[in-house]
């Protein structure tokens, strides 16, 4: 098993004909992902390296059985593209696009919930289930198949930790980038639930950063509902208050949302928190070894 994407994924890419969409869509197909269609309004009937392109997501669902949508559409059109995928009846939408207005996402978030569609992102690197499927921009070469589930707000930080795990001889059930925006479709808790239920996953690595209270909420949830060990890492201890650090969500206002507050909340619930990506990978390896 793995979570969110796997052998049953049938992928449709909104924005497949764009430069980035083509590059990453075909890269995902080369990895073994079942890429069944692309969508670009007005380009229906064309193909991208043999992948049929439709005008609407609905056609891709009806004609090709697509069940998972990846959004590679420019920011100003992306919220509408996510809405279209939700209405077309896919079960999962993974939005890579960066820079979507947050109040657009507020509406999209509730419509996805209403329709019972799993939304990952936006502004995220996607989901990789090593050996099975890759949907997004995560470089698969830094991850092996294994039993550690990773959930992260950050892309490169995840590659860093994944690579350290790989060098320690460890692999992953899935790697989920939930994105660093103020409103994302799935939070830590949503993904922790899936890992808790996933047979292949023995340990969970959670990578957070300053801003919001998703890590604090996750700490509560872990104490109540997660039986598997969780190791965490938090970035942003040296971030000054009120300054935005690239990720739109990574901004501290007032006293809550600091890295220290998040670390304290996690440690209060017996979650071990690494001081660096390297130490976090080490903690994960240690914890796994003591369980085996």
């Amino acid at each position: 098993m793995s979570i969110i994407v796997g052998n049953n994924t049938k992928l449709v890419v909104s924005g497949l004909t764009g430069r980035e969409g083509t590059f990453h869509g075909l890269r995902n197909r080369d990895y073994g992902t079942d890429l069944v269609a692309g969508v670009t309004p007005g380009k229906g009937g064309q193909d991208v390296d043999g992948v049929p392109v439709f005008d609407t997501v609905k056609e891709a669902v009806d004609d090709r059985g697509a069940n998972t949508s990846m959004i590679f559409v420019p920011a100003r059109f992306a919220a509408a593209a996510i809405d279209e995928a939700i209405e077309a009846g896919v079960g999962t939408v993974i939005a890579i696009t960066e820079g979507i207005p947050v109040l657009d996402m507020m509406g999209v978030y509730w419509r996805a919930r209403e329709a019972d569609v799993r939304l990952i992102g936006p502004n995220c690197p996607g989901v990789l289930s090593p050996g099975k499927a890759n949907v997004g921009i995560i470089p698969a070469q830094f991850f092996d198949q294994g039993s550690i589930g990773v959930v992260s707000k950050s892309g490169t930080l995840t590659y860093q930790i994944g690579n350290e795990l790989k060098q320690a001889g460890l692999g992953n059930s899935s790697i989920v980038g939930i994105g660093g925006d103020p409103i994302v479709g799935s939070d830590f808790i949503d993904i922790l639930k899936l890992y808790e239920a996933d047979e292949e996953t023995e340990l969970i690595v959670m990578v957070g950063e300053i801003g919001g209270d998703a890590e604090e909420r996750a700490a509560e949830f872990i104490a109540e509902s997660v039986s598997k060990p969780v190791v965490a890492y938090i970035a942003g201890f040296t971030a000054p208050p009120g300054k935005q650090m690239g990720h739109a969500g990574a901004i501290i206002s007032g006293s809550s949302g600091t890295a220290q507050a998040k670390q304290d909340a996690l440690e209060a619930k017996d979650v071990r928190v690494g001081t660096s990506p390297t130490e976090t990978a080490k903690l994960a390896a240690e914890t796994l070894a003591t369980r085996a």
Partner: protein
Amino acid sequence: MDLLEYQGKQLFAKHGLAVPQGRHAATLDDAIAAAAEIGYPCVVKAQVAIGKRGKAGGIKVAKDEAEARTHSEAILGMDIRGFTVHDLWIEEASEIDAEYYASIILDRGEKKLLAMLSRMGGMDVEEMAERDPNALARRHIEPASGLDLETAREIAREAQIDDDVVDGVAEMLVKLAEIALAEDATLIEINPLIVTADREVVALDAKVTIDGNSLFRHTDLAELRDRSAEDEQERMAKEKGLTYVKLDGNVGILANGAGLCMSTLDVVAQAGGRPANFLDAGGGSKAEAIVDALEVITSDEKVSAILFNIFGGITRCDEIAKGIIEASNQTDIGVPLVVRLDGTNSEEGLGLLAEAELPNLHLEKTMLGGAETVVELA
């Protein structure tokens, strides 16, 4: 993007919300002319994006032209907690009967806008909530339906707003929620929201944050500038399209990806160093972006050593290496440069750097090793 008070008030006025009459001024002459137009008494207010301006001496009442001149002269150019005053707002003085607090804020945990209202205005909201949690009425706004007048009246009653102005305050709350949605504001805070001697409800202050991602559809707001908050490096970085935040240390930092960059700052701090900046080179950076980034980092005179922490995913390490070599050819970097390259094409990148034999270049294999070395050299 934070609006200055007067920019926020102009936005309110555009949406028909009651604000005191005011004029913007950037020079002493402007200020005197503005005061004459507004009439006396008027209030001279420093326009900087930081709170407690009054305590810092940035807000003064002027009874006549002589006082307007004295106050404007004193406030223009004043430093308020690191922000230089470049702009003034000259406003008619208000007769205040009551001071309330009203805000609309994006609650990212609940994924909804939150309306807050209190009859205890004038102090900051944390202090207010601490002193008397019941004094702050809060209500989430359903995204599908918005805030209607009846709900706003309920909030006003819950906050124990004076009976005669419940309608006026409720109407203002409804309007604030509409402005938030129309203008992509993630925060609108009015503190104080006043009731005048004539029992009119007026916004005496305005704190507005606009979602930077939405500026493509708010071209009028995109043109607004806050000169008080910009420093030289940040302005330069913005022109070059780099994500840069100035800090007060001496170790220059570049990493790819916001998360990895924040993590790099932390690891450098743990090694005993003080980061000079946050600079996220982003995904898929080309050599040219690296040249620009080095120019911005080295223009900060405090920088005494630089760390490049690159984990290449989409970013190719050989491109980073080419950028470093190109920058070194164009100019003398002048300080030690520690480079950690890992991930996509790292062997090629490290090979190129080794071949180039650049002076003052230190190659590292790991992130922690890079942090330790740069702190030693700084």
